[in-house]
């Protein structure tokens, strides 16, 4: 047993879906178990952190790390596993791009705490109790890991060898990675395990030249099942999203959400969506443009649904412009300065 290469799986800020996804490789899991010494996975194994600390540096062959980094504990574990692992894989959308936890970057810690523990309509908390990092009780001091203002991705805190995007990653890519490791044919560091084309490549829908004069929300129209959703005015991030999922969402009449992140070579997927979608708007005056854009509420939410933490701007500003509150900023519909219009 000691001869086998060691495999670790860890979850930071994540939902647990990535662990389930690993099971989706079905009987292949037996080969994995056969090949690796599966030493660490808090979800299913009762190994302790101290056990990991006890390992030699680099003793773990591969760590599949899912979840974003948003607490002191996340960071500690990321740093620890980095030190102990030869290969660290950012596994799943949270670890690669920030994913849903990364949406917290539209707010700051205070706003998060207030909403989650006090203001959310489903919360009953008349005393307004929120968690503290440390509190003195009769028995001594109790501690919780520090909660960050900003959610980060794994590669923003430690170096990462490979990325396996997807929320969750598709089984075939997990298989591909695991097989590559087992075969000792490791791709160059930095490789994103997936395709280098976009979802459109796998999408069976028929596409035409594009002109968008209205964005529809999914409940507003029943889309033609054979035609490109974007051509029908439904937001679909597939044009700027790495392929690999087999165009799952579009094939069930739902626009791509963008969970695989931007494709090869693209630095900021949101910027590319802005560019592409704006380019095909059917409008040539600021007023007409505004009219169409009014049908696309929350553009930042659409464009950075998965990738905000890993995007170039990373989060909303902490210090608002001219002392304005962030909420006021968001409500404001920016319009072109009329002077610059013509």
């Amino acid at each position, binding site marked *: 047993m000691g001869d086998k290469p060691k495999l670790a799986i860890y979850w930071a800020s994540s939902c647990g879906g990535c662990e389930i996804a690993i099971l989706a490789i079905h009987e292949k899991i037996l080969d994995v178990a056969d090949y690796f010494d599966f030493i660490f996975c808090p979800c299913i194994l009762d190994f302790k952190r101290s056990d990991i600390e006890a390992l030699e540096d680099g003793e773990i062959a591969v760590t599949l790390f899912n979840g974003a980094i948003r607490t002191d504990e996340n960071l500690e574990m990321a740093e620890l596993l980095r030190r102990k692992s030869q290969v660290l894989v950012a596994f799943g959308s949270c670890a690669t791009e920030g994913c849903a936890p990364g949406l917290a970057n539209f707010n700051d810690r205070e706003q998060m705490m207030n909403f989650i523990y006090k203001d959310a309509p489903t919360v009953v908390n008349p005393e307004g109790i929120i968690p503290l990092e440390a509190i003195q009780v009769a028995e001594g001091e109790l501690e919780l890991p520090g909660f960050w203002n900003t959610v980060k991705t794994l590669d923003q805190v430690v170096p990462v060898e490979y990325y396996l995007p997807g929320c969750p990653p598709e089984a075939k890519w997990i298989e591909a990675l695991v097989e590559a490791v087992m075969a000792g044919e490791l791709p160059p560091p930095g490789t994103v395990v997936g395709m280098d084309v976009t979802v459109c490549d796998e999408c069976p829908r028929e596409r035409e030249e594009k002109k968008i004069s209205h964005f529809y929300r999914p409940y507003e129209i029943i889309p033609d099942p054979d035609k490109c959703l974007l051509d029908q005015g439904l937001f679909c991030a597939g044009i700027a999203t790495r392929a690999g999922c087999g165009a799952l969402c579009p094939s069930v009449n739902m626009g791509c959400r963008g969970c695989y992140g931007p494709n090869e070579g693209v630095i*900021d997927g949101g910027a590319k969506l802005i560019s592409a979608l*704006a380019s095909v708007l059917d409008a040539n005056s600021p007023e007409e443009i505004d009219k169409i854009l009014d049908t696309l509420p929350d553009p930042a939410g659409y464009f950075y649904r998965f990738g905000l933490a890993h995007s*170039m*701007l990373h989060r909303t500003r*902490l210090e608002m412009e001219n002392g304005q509150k*962030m909420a006021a*900023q968001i409500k404001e519909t920016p319009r*072109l300065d009329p002077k*610059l219009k013509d």
Partner: protein
Amino acid sequence: MVDYKQYHPAWGDRSPVIIGFLCNWCSYRAADLAGTSRFGYPATLRDIRIMCTGRLDPTFVIKALREGADGVLVMGCHPGQCHYEEGNFKAMRRVALLRRTLSQLGVHPDRVQLGWASAAQGIIFTETVKEMTEKIAKLGPLKWHDNNHDASPHLPPLPEKEATHG
């Protein structure tokens, strides 16, 4: 040297930095004309020549903001006079959507502006730079790095009075 503290105290001794994207045919030539005509304007604009504002990739704008620029000015030919027929309309649409998106991220939409100047309008070019500089000066520095990348994720503990534990 202009003292920008009068517009916003946060400037300290520095001046606003604006990255300009100027199309080769109209606004870059307007900037050239401003030069040959010796029309002075604030030394805040650092421009990049692109063939057409249609080449404007929002990635560039975001890149400029994150690399330390306080604003981005995109200038092209007047609508209807694009050398490539309608590249400037594409820029107009992209900038409109980009500004909406950026404002959600707490970046004031006025930090990204679009303007038009024909090759003969050196004066309009200068006026646009002046106006933009003043707007940015009033907004204060963007300080993307300080603002968006809290170098230490560790914040001071939350105030104790918030909690009434046990």
